[in-house]
């Protein structure tokens, strides 16, 4: 591998992981703003999204530049392909974190509503999925990536329970409808973030093993 390609790949890895760090941070802050009804924190997340968008564009340009300049093959090519996909997933996550922050801002103006009991568990699961999917990318750990894919079912279960709980709350008192709807959409955003983490994990499996496991349950279960 040429020295220049190696250096460009290193820089790409750094830019991508810095973007990931920003996204993780935004995610944590948005969830905290939701739980603590902290409008300032939510504001911060919403403001920070512009920078994340700029970073995303930068990473994409870097990927295309490497493809055009070095025409990499095999693992290098897969790495660029994975970086392109992970980049897009991260940007979507950041948007969802921003949406959660917006919900948090809105919720803060409404009368207090009890947080669904499972929300904490779902939050913990989602953030750890995001974290582990990025860890699996850093360490090229396909096993960890597959674990992340399996965690998604648990998040979906939490999501269902929370929605049921919210529906019950809305049925019991009509003035809870507005805050519950906000919480409902925040929960759904969270669930979507977990899906994006799963996508990243699948990209990592592709990067390491060269096998596409998306939409292929058999490949997913293989080589556990």
């Amino acid at each position, binding site marked *: 591998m040429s020295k220049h390609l190696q250096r460009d790949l*290193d820089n790409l*890895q750094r830019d991508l*992981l*810095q973007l*990931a*760090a*920003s996204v993780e*941070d935004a995610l*944590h802050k948005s969830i905290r703003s939701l739980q603590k009804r902290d409008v300032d924190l939510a504001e911060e997340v919403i403001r920070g999204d512009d920078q994340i968008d700029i970073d995303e564009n930068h990473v994409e340009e870097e990927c295309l530049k490497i493809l055009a300049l070095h025409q990499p093959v095999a693992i290098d090519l897969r790495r660029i392909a994975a970086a392109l996909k992970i980049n897009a997933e991260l940007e979507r996550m950041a948007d969802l974190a921003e949406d959660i922050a917006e919900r948090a801002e809105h919720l803060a103006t409404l009368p207090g509503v009890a947080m669904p009991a499972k929300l904490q568990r779902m939050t913990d699961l989602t953030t750890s999925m995001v974290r582990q999917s990025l860890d699996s990318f*850093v360490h090229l750990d396909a096993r960890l990536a597959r674990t992340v894919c399996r965690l998604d079912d648990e998040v979906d279960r939490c999501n269902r329970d929370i929605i049921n709980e919210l529906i019950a709350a809305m049925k019991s008192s009509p003035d809870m409808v507005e805050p519950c709807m906000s919480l409902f959409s925040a929960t759904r955003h969270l669930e979507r973030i977990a899906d994006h983490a799963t996508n990243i994990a699948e990209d990592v499996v592709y990067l390491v093993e060269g096998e596409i496991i998306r939409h292929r349950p058999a490949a997913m279960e293989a080589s556990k």
Partner: protein
Amino acid sequence: MRQSIYISAAPIYSVVMSRFPIFWQLLLAFALFVVLPLVALGLIGGGWMRDAGLQAVEERLRSKAALLDELVRGQNLEQLQGRLRSLREEFGPRIALIGADGRVVAESDRDDPSSLADREIASARAGLVGVTTRHSATTQTNTMYLARRVSNAQSLVEFVRVALPIADIEKHVRHLQWLTWGTAATTAAFALFLAWWLARRVVRPVQMIREGAAAVAAGDYGHKVYSERQDELGALAGAFNQMSERLASQFSQLDHDRQQLRAVLGSMVEGVIAVDAAQTVLFANDRAGELLEFGVSQAVGRRLWEVVRYRPVHDLVERLLSAPELGGQNLDWLGPGQRSFTVHAAPLPGRPVRGAVLVLHDVTEMRRLERVRQEFVANVSHELKTPLSVIVACAETLQSGAVDDVENRGRFLERIATQAQRLFMLIVDMIDLAKVEAGTEQFKRDEVAVDAAVLACIERHQERARAKNQRLEAVPPARIPPDGVTAWSDPDALSQILDNLVDNAIKYTPAEGLIQLHWWAEDSKAIVEVRDTGIGIPEHELPRVFERFYRVDKARSREMGGTGLGLSIVKHLAQAMGGGVRVASQVGQGTSFTVVLPQTDVG
């Protein structure tokens, strides 16, 4: 590259030789210096011996030919032919008489002398004598022929020729050559053995030292080689052992130092991460992994941005590495979870910059205390200001004429008195708390009957509870010890603890509520529990209810006339007694405070 330079500077011989194993080098040297001269000697000596033999034969033939010349002179052919056989026996060599035309006219060993004489005749015809050596068709051996022109030839015989076989000489030469080859072969065999033996003697220890060096290189410091030799190789083995020992001791010293450093860094409360100029992690202690949530074992050798995924840290290190002249930098950072960090980054000494060291302090607790202090100051000023402003307002109203308003001034005065009373209570509570906290208050510890204290407390509060339509009751333990439940405490402190808790319970329990005081002994502890069916405390507020001035619902508490210090005083008193207090609550269900006191003097 560099090696080829060395080779070109060295003598060709040693360069060529040094490519072979020592055994072959020795063997080649032996071959060059022993076998080769021997072979040369054999070849040269053989040729020389043959030449000398041939010379002798020629001399003999020459003298015989001269003699024959005398005999032949003046004789006719028939006479000569008759005498040839006797002459042959007398003379030794074969004799032939040759005519002027070169035809053999008579020969001693043949009856039909018909063959033509050869080159020797041509030479003799030119001079006096001709000599050749060739294969004789007659005797089938290599033979030397010598022809001589007969002086004053009168008969048909122009030349006489004598011939002698030279097979003997050739046999001798062959013998000598055989001897030489034999000796050379034996010597070569001996040289082979000698070379093998010498090589073995030299190579074995060298091999052993080489293996030893390989073992040391592979990490087996202190590896020893054993050699009983006293020569240079023995000395080399000794020097090797010394080196190996020194290496072992130095490495163990280094290892020890490293372990020590690692232990020191590992036991630090601060997280430490060292990176090089390319931001590769050189070292990270466990604490750093704990604070920044990464696996330390996987971190070393990776890039910082792969290990630590927090943007502020990346930016800090990048800034520092690009502008190291700025020196150490600090970062206050609200990190992951609920943690706060101070990150101090300093460049590693060296130019260009060789890396950076990050030191992370977890300042979560400090920040919390700071917040508590700020809140405390805010609370105190607020608590003091509220009654004072009422007093000031009332006083001003009175001053501006209300003092003459007989109807209303009583109300103002009453409010001034109430607020002053509240201010007084607040200050008394604060003084109490300060005294308990500072540990300056002297308690008279004694065995106190808990039963009596509880009943006395209920007595004091029954009136208020009844006013709020609440039931306040004592629930004695299921099994009362013979001399009742006792606690080792200051009786006044216990009374104050119970008063504060029951007072709170009455305040925060709605009408028709139930307040119960349970007490029992357990594991040599006296336990008193105050349970109510009040409004309860949200779970996340629970850890803070014992803080000074902390109020779950600020407006409500003040309306109830609380100072916000009651529970704080309970906590500090219980701790001063060597016990503690804990709280359990469920919103809407009620709260229970549990006071645990020692039953005997714990010192």
